[in-house]
């Protein structure tokens, strides 16, 4: 019997704003790959050039932490098979962006499509020992070769779960895992695209036998009848895979959740967490939620929603993020933003983006956390923090305390749309924004698809890639302003 106080405390999700129409991808490639027609339906969430698994993770984490005290967190993990850094703690960057305490554990989970659930199981099992909440984020931005099935199927997304001990919204009833080196696809380190094996074999031997078998075993292990499952969340996006697996296990078809393929796409390592978040949005107290994830074996987790789920503060979640999508059909821009199509960028793009580690370390709170300063004498808020305050009536020295600005609403004070400077997404919109309660920053704007930009527009801050150092394969992260929605 598991501790009824252990489980999920909150969830969050993030989808990039743009939803690329699959018909646009197919239209460009049908001359070469007419057999893709069957996949050319619906849309998929596509990250902008300034997003990656880290930045999307930050946004999902912010959503999950809505209304919570971040100082309470005990650890965080980031699961992804598309982490920007092979050797630099990716979740460490997320930690700085979330302005979490230094005294916190962090780990990256990777290597398989089920790394998200594997990290989640570890966190849940550890919750008995570690009473502080643990943030489990999954985020993936998977590239795919042009004119491939993956290109039509894959989508970019992130989701996060806060797990631990306390007033859980879904209590953890147990988990079951199997590990088998079943190579339905693989991607060697440093390689962009997956190499997949025949879909019929993957479905019959992998999805139905390995994943389906794990599901049946899990129900037996946990002593739960198939008919008790109210929400069957199967994070396998192959057509009909979820219903087929559920049927074999005896789970009612109406309990099987939509795999979100038509609207988001297969979000890889993030998909199981994303689907679980979507299920939690619908779950009512007392309902049982089963999550099945697949990747060189399978993970099965079982939860039961509690009364607390009804009083969780409102957040974007999956449904809210879906509603914020903007339909786009610019396939060329998508290829360019994925670094698949090398457009001529001009000499201005040659600017050296080398990032000194020393400067970044000294200023990590300001640069990665958007922590400004507040003068304890005058109350003046400013960014960045400085030794001598900016208040023209009192240049007080040594009086500034940390003042986080990332969650403070802002408004446009001045702006332009610059067509001369290099931007991967021209024109480059930027300008000064004023924070409610004081503080000002001149920053780039992002996520402007379909937005009207004018002085006074309400903005929010989002964590993004500022520039890429292509020479040294590094990313500069900073904050940008996006329309508040």
């Amino acid at each position: 019997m598991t501790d009824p106080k252990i489980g999920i405390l909150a969830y969050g999700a993030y989808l990039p704003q743009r939803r690329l129409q699959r018909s646009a991808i197919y239209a460009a490639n049908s001359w070469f790959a007419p057999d893709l027609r069957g996949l050319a339906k619906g849309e998929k969430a596509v990250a902008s050039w300034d997003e990656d698994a880290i930045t999307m993770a930050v946004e999902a984490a912010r959503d999950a932490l809505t209304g919570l005290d971040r100082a309470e967190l005990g650890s965080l993990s980031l699961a992804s098979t598309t982490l920007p850094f092979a050797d630099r703690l990716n979740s460490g960057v997320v930690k700085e962006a979330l302005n979490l305490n230094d005294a916190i554990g962090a780990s990256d989970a990777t290597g398989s499509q089920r790394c998200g659930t594997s990290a989640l199981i570890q966190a849940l099992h550890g919750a008995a020992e570690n009473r502080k909440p643990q943030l489990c984020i999954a985020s993936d931005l998977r590239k795919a070769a042009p004119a491939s099935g993956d290109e039509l199927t894959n989508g970019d997304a992130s989701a996060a779960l806060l797990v631990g001990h306390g007033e859980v919204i879904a209590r953890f009833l147990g988990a079951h895992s199997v590990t088998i080196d079943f190579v339905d696809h693989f991607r060697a380190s440093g390689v962009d695209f997956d190499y997949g094996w025949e879909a019929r074999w993957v479905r019959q031997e992998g999805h139905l036998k390995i994943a389906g078998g794990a599901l049946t075993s899990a129900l037996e292990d946990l002593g739960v009848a198939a008919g008790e499952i109210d929400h069957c969340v199967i994070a396998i996006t192959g057509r009909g895979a979820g219903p087929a697996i559920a049927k074999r296990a005896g789970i009612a078809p109406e309990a099987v959740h939509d795999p979100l393929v038509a609207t988001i796409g297969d979000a890889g390592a993030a998909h199981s967490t994303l689907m679980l978040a979507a299920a939690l949005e619908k779950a009512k107290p007392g309902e049982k939620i089963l999550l099945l994830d697949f990747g060189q074996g399978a993970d099965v987790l079982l939860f039961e929603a509690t009364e607390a789920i009804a009083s969780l503060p409102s957040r974007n979640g999956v449904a809210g993020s879906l509603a914020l999508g903007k339909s786009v059909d610019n396939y060329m821009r998508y290829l360019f933003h994925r670094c698949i199509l090398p457009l001529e960028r001009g000499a201005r793009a040659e600017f050296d983006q080398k990032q000194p580690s020393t400067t970044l370390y000294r200023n990590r709170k300001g640069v990665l956390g958007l922590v400004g300063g507040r003068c304890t004498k005058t109350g003046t808020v400013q960014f960045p923090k400085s030794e001598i305050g900016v208040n023209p009536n009192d240049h007080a020295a040594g009086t500034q305390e940390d003042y986080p600005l990332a969650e403070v609403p802002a408004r446009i004070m001045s702006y332009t749309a610059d067509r001369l400077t290099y931007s991967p997404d021209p024109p480059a919109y930027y300008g000064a924004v004023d924070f409610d309660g004081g503080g000002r920053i001149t920053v780039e704007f992002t996520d402007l698809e379909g937005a009207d930009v004018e002085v006074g527009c309400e903005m929010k801050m989002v964590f993004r890639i500022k520039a890429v150092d292509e020479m040294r394969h590094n990313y500069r992260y900073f904050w940008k302003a996006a329309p508040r929605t």
Partner: protein
Amino acid sequence: MPRGIKDKVAILGMGCAKFGERWDADADQLMVEAFTEAVGDAGIETSQIDAAWLAVGFDAVNIGPSGIPLSMALRLNNIPVTKVENYCASGTEAFRGAVYAVASGAADIALAMGVEKLKDIGYGGLPVRTRGTMHDMIGVTGSAPGNFAQLAAAYRAEHKVSADDLKRSMAHVSVKSHANGAKNPKAHLRKLIDMDTVLNAPMIAEPLGLFDCCGVSDGAACAIVTTPEIARSLGKSDLVSVKALQLSVSNGWEMQGTGWNGSYFPTTRLAASRAYDEAGITDPREEVGLLEVHDCFSITEVVTMEDLHISKPGEGWKDVLDGMFDADGKSPCQIDGGLKCFGHPIGASGIRMIYENYLQLLGRAGERQRAEPPKYALSHNLGGMPNQNVAAVAIVGMED
């Protein structure tokens, strides 16, 4: 209250190279071109120069560090040469160094040279450059037009001016400067343009179109200064003297505070007020008869008319449309074509402005000479961007 610089220093001679795409010339040749004219005008030998200041804006594509390139180009007599950089206000900064050296008595004759060799960049516009390791992490890597274009958005919001009205006023600025530049043989751009051309030009940074942006040029300009007494001893009679020389540098308030609305330059306002006090000018709209301002972009010229206390706040755009600053207007602005058409070799621009004012005061401006030379001629040289800048104001006039 400082005693000020008024009438303590006279201009002995000035020179200016032909601005433009000088594919034929290196920076040292441009400096020699400006210097040859200036030293001839001054009627002295190189060996009589006691100290020199060199202004350059962009190191990376230019002459490299130190004052050595000036000393080598002119074969100066191993005198002190100080290199200065203060964004696009570097030229006036070099002039200030030379003037202060003479005023202090440390030098009898001093030289200010500004030079920029921009057309070795390989692309149009100004080069992209670092602003320090910390700033590069948080600052926008925008273009110069993008930085100044924000003035227009903020100005419209502050003064409730429609986008069309402001765009027409900005276009008038450029049409006027092209008309003036066409009459200047040393100007980079010498082609007349009309309003439709400006209004329909390709967008660079909204709302600035191609013709709202100044030329990016190679060039050099040079001033030789001394005391009025020494000038007279060298046989000079009609002396152009320095009436005021002021600089105001942002301390971060515009960028980091919240009191500034983005529609004006507090630094220009301060530098102008201090300069008028120094020169003894009480009614600038009436007393300043000639203006050379830092029209890097048309919108900058519009708001600068207000910041120099010539136009009332919110009315600069109307004064522009009324023709007040046209060559035949009450107070001509950019009668030599300005940055817009004379060109903008960064380090040279501040000295080029003073060069035109000097010529106009002495009646030596050729086809573009004002019939009645002004009492005071003002130059305004701005570096940086609206939210973080260096504003320089220099006023010259005939010695009283």
